């Protein structure tokens, strides 16, 4: 009976289900308090370090040693990279199925032990449907930066990249940005300093335009900081974020809190909430409250499930809520399947089911 129930629950979760492929802040459940353990970039996401790739290999159904496992531990890996092809099928409720293909190339080239050049770009196909509605393929040089790491726990980054956030979840950030930070570049030109140790993790940064803003009046300049503290047995990190920016079209101030908690090696929660105040050049003042809360359940490392709830409220304006259950099945180090649904509750409700196959080479 229990086996039948388990199977039914598994099938149900697979039908419901996925999550962004870039960031896994749920690794807090295994005691990974900092993204820097597994990612080249201390803020997480992007190309993995050798160790990160080893952990990635170990968390699949067909787990095993990565190809360079026999290379001496202290050897400098000059060229880290991965290429990912994602094939997605989105089925909006009441709409036609949309097919899309994304290819992403990410690399980190080590000049020496302290200096790396990190580059990433993607090619995104238009959304294809059976009635041939389509757009154009887009090519983006999304990230290019130099990273100087004089010693363990300190890094200086200069270039184009995502701005640091508490959880570093790209899907959540995209959900908010269209409302509480519209028309600006998601990867502005920036200089960042990271400092982290077993207890603390701090990032401070300043940034400016990168030319991807929709109009010159949205070319923003700003600064911000993110600080987190490991408060419970390497299984809970809580922190604060803040950012101020200014453009011809607006002044913007933002402050938030975040938490990553692993109650056990299988269960935990992620949360990030912030308040943004924007004063437009028209004199209009807007206050947005945005949040992401996620409970994750990882019965086995190769099966990662999560239920995320997000909200975006504008004082005196519209409110949007999104509920996203997801399941990721890590078949091998090179193949992953993701299932998800995204239910958006706003003026017009919508629901999209999505299946994504990711093929990775590295």
């Amino acid at each position, binding site marked *: 009976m229990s086996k039948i129930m388990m199977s039914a629950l598994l099938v149900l979760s697979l039908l419901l289900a996925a999550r962004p492929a870039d960031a896994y802040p749920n690794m807090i*459940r*295994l*005691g*990974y*308090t*900092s993204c*820097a*353990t597994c990612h080249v970039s201390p803020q997480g996401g992007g190309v993995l*370090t*050798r*160790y990160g*790739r*080893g*952990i990635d*290999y*170990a*968390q699949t159904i067909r*787990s*095993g*040693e*990565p190809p*360079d*496992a026999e290379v001496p*531990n*202290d050897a400098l890996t000059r060229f880290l990279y991965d290429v990912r092809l994602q094939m997605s099928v989105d089925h909006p409720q009441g709409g036609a199925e949309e097919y899309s293909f994304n290819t992403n190339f990410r690399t980190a080239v080590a000049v020496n032990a302290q200096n790396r050049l990190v580059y990433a770009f993607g090619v995104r196909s238009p959304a294809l449907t059976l009635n041939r509605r389509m757009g154009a393929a887009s090519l983006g040089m999304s990230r290019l930066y130099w990273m100087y790491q004089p010693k*363990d*726990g300190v890094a200086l980054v200069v270039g184009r990249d995502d701005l640091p956030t508490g959880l570093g979840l790209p899907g959540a950030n995209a959900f908010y940005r269209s409302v509480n930070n519209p028309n600006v570049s998601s990867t502005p030109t920036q200089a960042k300093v990271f400092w*982290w*140790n*077993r207890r603390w993790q701090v990032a401070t940064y300043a940034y400016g335009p990168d030319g991807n803003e929709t109009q010159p009046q949205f070319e923003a300049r700003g600064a911000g900081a993110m600080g987190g503290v490991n408060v419970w*047995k*390497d299984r809970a990190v809580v922190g604060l974020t803040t950012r101020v920016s200014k453009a011809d079209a607006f002044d913007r101030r933002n402050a938030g809190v975040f938490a990553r908690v692993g109650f056990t*090696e299988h269960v935990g929660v992620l949360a990030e909430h912030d308040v943004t105040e924007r004063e437009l050049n028209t004199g209009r003042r807007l206050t947005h409250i945005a949040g992401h809360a996620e409970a994750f359940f990882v019965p086995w*490392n190769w099966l990662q499930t999560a239920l995320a709830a997000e909200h975006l409220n504008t004082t005196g304006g519209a409110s949007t809520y999104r509920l996203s259950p997801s399941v990721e099945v890590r078949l091998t180090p090179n193949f992953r399947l993701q299932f998800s649904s995204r239910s958006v509750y706003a003026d017009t409700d919508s629901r999209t089911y999505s299946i994504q196959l990711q093929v990775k080479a590295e």
Partner: protein
Amino acid sequence: MASNRIMSTCTTVLVGLFLLPLPTRAQDADGAQTKLRVMNAQVSVLCPLTIGGSFEARTKALSGQVGMAPDTAQPLDGDLAVDLQTLETGIGLRDEHLRKKYLEVERGPTYAQAHLRNIRVEKLAGKTPFRAVLMLHGQTKEVTGTADIKPEGDGYRLNASFPVRVSEFGIPEPTYLGVGVKDEVTVRVNLNAAPAAVATSGRSK
């Protein structure tokens, strides 16, 4: 005069009874030392990573018994054994590395199990420092730590922790793809122990 002596004797006996140390809970009526058997336990080894963060290796496979002697100057008679082949860290490949490459459990019983013997505590209730002999990876070293001993039912609940330097036990430096485990790890032991007779009867049910 006689009544004064009787009163004095009674007072002494009463005071003595109230001041009687808790370990007598585990002693037989005739005052002989009683063995306490581990009923359930969890051992976790906190392994800090060189780059920050940590992982825990855990097992419930702790067995053995100790004799509770009222004289804390003497080591507790007994042996606690941990089956190292059951240690789990949350990642299967890491479990395999831990057991085979570093603890080398396949080399024989002295590698497959860790033993804690000659346990000395300053008191048998409350928080107390302790020292013991740890046999691990074919090596024998003394370790020191702190323990919190609480009476519970017929037996005791114990929470103890002590640091271990892996290099002192001849364990190869644990590293994987450039990230290592710091030399000092922390062992935490949580266990419930009951008088051996009770434990035996409990299991036979």
